[in-house]
């Protein structure tokens, strides 16, 4: 999170992308020179099912304002079933965060295939805009990690 009274708010966003579909989709949006905001940083994981809720909480703790998880479309998982598990885990986690009063928009799951460079860029743009509108993450921050 970078906040300065005089500057506009530039959120920090972490995107977890599965190696086989979404990371390749992100590469494709690069190959096609499709712009999306630079405050989104991608972490490569083998599969969306590798993403532990702990990683997402960790990101919020360390100052992320939004976390998005991208994986293969259901049914297309490289490991056949990974994204199905990821979908359930994330649905329940997001629901719990919502229950605790954390803004719903801060987390998202999107399925992006290796062929969907356009979708990847669009998704990232819309997510970044949503987080910017939500403002800094204050409800789930670790004050000690504040710069």
């Amino acid at each position, binding site marked *: 999170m970078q906040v300065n009274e005089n500057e506009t708010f530039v959120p920090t966003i972490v995107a977890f992308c599965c190696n086989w579909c979404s990371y390749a989709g992100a590469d494709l949006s690069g190959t096609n020179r499709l712009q999306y905001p630079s405050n989104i940083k991608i972490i490569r994981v083998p599969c969306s099912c590798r993403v532990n*809720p*702990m990683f997402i*909480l*960790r990101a*919020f*703790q360390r100052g992320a304002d939004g976390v998005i998880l991208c994986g293969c479309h*259901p*049914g297309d998982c490289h490991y056949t*079933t990974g994204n*199905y*598990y990821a*979908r*359930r*885990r*994330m*649905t*329940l*986690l*997001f*629901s*719990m*965060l*919502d*229950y*605790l*009063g*954390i*803004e*719903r*928009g801060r*987390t*998202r*799951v999107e399925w992006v295939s290796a062929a969907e460079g356009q979708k990847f860029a669009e998704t990232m743009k819309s997510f970044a805009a949503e987080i910017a509108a939500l403002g800094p993450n204050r*409800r*789930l*921050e*670790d*004050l*000690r990690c504040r710069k």
Partner: protein
Amino acid sequence: MQEMMKKRAKTLLADGTVSRVIGWRRGEFSYDVTPAVFETAEEIDRDFVFDAFCGANVSKYLIRESAKEDGRILAFLKPCDAFSFNQLLAEHRVRRENVYLIGIPCAGKADIDRIKKAGIDGVTGIAEDGEDFVVSTVYGDERVKQADVLAERCLACKSKRHPVYDELLGEEGEDLPDDVRFAGVAKLEAMTAEERFDFWRSELSKCIRCNACRNVCPACTCENCVFDNPASGISQKAAADPFEENMYHIIRAFHVAGRCTDCGECSRVCPEHIPLHLLNRKFIKDIDELYGTYRAGEDDGTKNPLTSYTEGDAEASVVRERGRA
């Protein structure tokens, strides 16, 4: 009931079916009852109690007890305990062959704090009498409506039937409808995000990280808990700030999601009276609504909803599309 249990325990000890018995023993105060292991008829005669203060879930103790190469142990399980036991069985945490289970009925357990709040002090004992409890005190007997002093988890009882047992003492009861059980969660869900945030902030900020909720939880049976393991990257000894209070309870609830049998022990033991069961019950409610009714420990062959899936599962966006913010 207590006498029936004692008698049966002594018979089973005498005929060699079991070598030990796990039940409850009174502590400093009459309402301060803890699980205990009895090895002789004399111990049972002297210390074994069973009354409306015996809320503690004994199933978790059976992990250790059933691993002993020391004959079978007799366990008296309330329906709650039996669900927990069954879940532990599914996770290979207890050895069934080393345990003899007697299912005992439970009409709900008394909450000593509610009794005290009702103005009853100097409690020395409790007895069930129809719809009431008769609480004996140093000042004489007091009669209270059960509904007024039952523990919250018992008012929202998930089941009065045993999913597993070797024999039953007494009759199986009737289950309550689910809406009673989820009323607390539904109430929170109906609030605005701000209200919910404020609610949880005020509750969770009371957490002193005593770990009692974890230590009592029959689903939290890890050999080495992630919060104690420096290599896990999230180990904490004390919750230092609001984030870690959230973090600890979210992670804990997530780790037991799909495995929590909703026995409510976490809330019972919390010295700060944080309604922790509302976190677990939220996961249960979500699972029921999204993936079909599932009761951990019921053992009807349904797979843990977090280790199974269907192709048509709801997308995570269902959370943001729900009713209101």
